[in-house]
């Protein structure tokens, strides 16, 4: 496992190479990026095989720590170090695989765009940063890569920067995550202040040994979690993610669904032992996750932009992962299982949405419809992803959702369980609705429909591969299948906190979760397919205010805009006035004015008559002598 550093090193080298030489290469060097992603993926398997070598059921792999000191000032050192354990391995598998699929897909999707080579350059930088992030053994390196993936996200959301909305969305994403990142940085500084090191394992050990007081521990945990909320777009810092869909669709799949946005989940999972010790921290995680998952499911109900609906489903999923983490117990296993399968079906959903967008140049579902005749494979794959997202048996999403529901029921009781179940049902409604609006019914825009066609093999192959994983990915929970793959057991026996967990069907639970999902899906069919959506319109007419609130996403954006307009600009006005009136006019200019005035008056003393100067000397000597005499006399 010591060779794990090679995995991020490959895309980093690709980035450096392409940064300088992409324009000298044929096809602007896109193949370098794809080959780099492929190489990372291959190396990952060597690391995995190495990690699995000789471990048996219920045993954790021995984490490998590798690295060197980068900078050192007395007792303060910045280390570049890699820590490989089960959590890192699960993340590595997701990142390397989805990165490879997206690189491949982008060859078709981005063909002929401006700055084609630059796109792949940034994609490689992103992959390198994300892989370092999941391997980092200390908070500072993690923070550096955390910001690096943020800047890649900024650059890729704003990739079509000629379009104003894309530039605005990039800015919004950057500024919003910045809010969380600032809290994260303060948390890191607090942790360093308390423990004296950035090392994550040392921090966790100190927390578990009770070396940090409860107050500090809560402060550190919550501040770091606010960073996670920013990166993982949790309420109320979720506003950037739907807008981030302005970026190219493969980017949405890679960064804003499968990898970067789950960095917050990863970090919370990484520090989970600390969160468990800190009072209130887990409850806070649970509540934030719950609010986000229900909020996004509600908002997703009436959106019509395909990519945005999928983005809201991402919010929904991220919220669920935090619910699982916040629940405690086997929550880590459930959350990471969901993260693992979510990466595949969400990437699939995005890539299918991209396929539609690529073929029709439309992304508003109200202008589409009936596309299954023109794009049957895309329709099936999108449907597969949607069903997995809804949690329909036996797709991968089902197993993960079932685990989460079981954990919530065991650890937190029926009230929370009920709320999560509501969110599951709502997910079924909106994800089925967007599939119906896009692929079923009659075409609403004949022109777009006529031009629709199935995408080329470069785009379809990654989609099919992801589709297969969506279909079978959830089966990793079973011990038999895990053992076939070389693991000691199923997912729960590979990644766990204290004791391994064997997956088993709890039929009441399965009934509840599948029932809720199917209920949602059937409601979507009932309201939006039968009678071409007239029933949905009728319901909406009954509750116009409710519909308005949902369409406008609970007016969160408007509230923030008002906050910026009145509170922030008002405060900025006060500061600006202070700067102008006090600092500039009185301070800086004041000094100059004073000097000029004094010179203006004093210049008359410079007569040029030598006896006058002699007189001043005499007067000065007399004064000094007097002072000397008086003080000495005392």
């Amino acid at each position: 496992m010591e060779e794990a550093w090679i995995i991020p090193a490959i895309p980093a080298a690709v980035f450096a190479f392409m940064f300088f030489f992409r324009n000298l290469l044929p096809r602007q060097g896109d193949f370098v990026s794809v080959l780099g992603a492929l190489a990372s993926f291959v190396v990952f398997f060597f690391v995995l095989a190495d990690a699995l070598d000789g471990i048996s059921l219920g045993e954790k792999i021995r984490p490998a720590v590798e690295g060197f000191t980068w900078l050192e000032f007395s007792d303060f050192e910045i280390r570049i170090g890699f820590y490989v354990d089960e959590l890192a391995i699960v993340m590595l598998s997701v990142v390397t695989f989805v990165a490879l699929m997206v690189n491949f897909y982008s060859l078709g999707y981005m063909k002929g765009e401006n700055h084609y080579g630059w796109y792949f350059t940034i994609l490689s930088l992103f992959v390198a940063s994300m892989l370092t992030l999941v391997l980092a053994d200390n908070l500072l390196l993690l923070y550096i890569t955390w910001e690096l993936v943020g800047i890649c996200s900024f650059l890729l959301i704003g990739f079509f920067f000629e379009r104003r909305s894309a530039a605005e969305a990039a800015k919004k994403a950057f500024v919003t995550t910045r809010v969380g990142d600032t809290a994260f940085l303060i948390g890191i500084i607090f942790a360093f202040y308390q423990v004296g090191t950035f090392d994550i394992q040392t921090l966790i050990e100190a927390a578990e040994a009770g070396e940090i007081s409860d107050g500090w521990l809560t402060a550190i945990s919550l501040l770091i979690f606010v960073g996670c909320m920013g990166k993982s777009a949790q309420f109320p810092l979720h506003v950037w993610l739907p807008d981030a869909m302005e970026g190219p669709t493969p980017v949405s799949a890679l960064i804003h669904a499968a990898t970067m946005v789950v960095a917050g989940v990863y970090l919370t999972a990484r520090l989970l032992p600390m969160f468990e010790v800190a009072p209130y921290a887990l409850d806070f995680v649970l509540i934030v996750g719950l609010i986000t998952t229900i909020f996004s499911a509600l908002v997703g109900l009436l959106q019509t932009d395909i990519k945005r609906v999928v983005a809201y489903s991402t919010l929904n999923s991220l919220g669920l992962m935090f619910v699982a983490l916040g629940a405690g117990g086997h929550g880590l296993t459930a959350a990471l299982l969901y993260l693992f399968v979510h990466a595949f079906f969400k990437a699939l959903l995005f890539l299918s949405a991209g396929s539609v967008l690529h073929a029709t140049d439309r992304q508003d579902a109200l202008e589409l419809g009936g596309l299954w005749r023109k794009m049957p494979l895309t329709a099936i794959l999108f449907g597969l992803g949607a069903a997995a997202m809804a949690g329909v048996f036996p797709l991968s999403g089902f197993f993960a959702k079932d685990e989460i529901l079981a954990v919530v029921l065991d650890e937190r009781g029926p009230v929370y369980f009920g709320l999560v179940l509501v969110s599951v049902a709502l997910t079924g409604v909106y994800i089925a609705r967007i599939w119906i609006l896009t692929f079923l019914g009659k075409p609403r825009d004949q022109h777009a429909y006529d031009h629709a066609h199935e995408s080329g093999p470069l785009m379809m192959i990654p989609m099919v591969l992801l589709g297969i994983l969506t279909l079978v990915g959830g089966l990793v929970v079973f011990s038999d299948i895990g053992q076939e793959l070389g693991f000691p057991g199923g997912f729960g026996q590979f990644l766990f906190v204290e004791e391994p967990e064997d997956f088993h069907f709890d039929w009441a639970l399965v009934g509840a979760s599948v029932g809720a999902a199917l209920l949602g899906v059937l409601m979507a069919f009932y309201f939006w397919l039968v009678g071409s959506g007239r029933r949905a319109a009728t319901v909406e007419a009954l509750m116009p205010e409710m519909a308005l609130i949902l369409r406008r996403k609970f007016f969160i954006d408007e509230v923030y805009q008002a906050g910026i307009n009145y509170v922030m600009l008002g405060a900025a006005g006060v500061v600006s006035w202070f700067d102008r009136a006090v600092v500039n006019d009185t301070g800086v200019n004041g000094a100059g004015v004073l000097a000029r005035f004094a010179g203006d008056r004093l210049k008359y003393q410079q007569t040029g008559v030598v006896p006058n100067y002699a007189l001043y000397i005499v007067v000065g000597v007399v004064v000094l002598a007097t002072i000397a005499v008086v003080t000495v006399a005392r």
Partner: protein
Amino acid sequence: MIPLEHFLVLSGILFSTGIYGVLSRRNAVLILMSVELMLAAVSINMTAFAVYISPDLFTGIIFAVFVIVVAAAEVALGLAIIVRVFRQRASANVDEVASLKW
């Protein structure tokens, strides 16, 4: 014996008179004379201190002799310059000798 203070007061009066002369006179000869007064005051001071404070040493008196020598040389040189200036300008007023000022 005359107390030391009397010498000091005399020397103070002489020095002040000298300063007044230097500051207020315009005639170069008078300024030179005032400077001589100030030097004389200093010489008196030194001689008085020498006698009253360290009678065994002659440092102060020797210093006074030096001052007299320097003053004589200075007056000789100064008067020579003043004579040259007077020859040129028909005036010994220091304010008029300003051609080196800009």
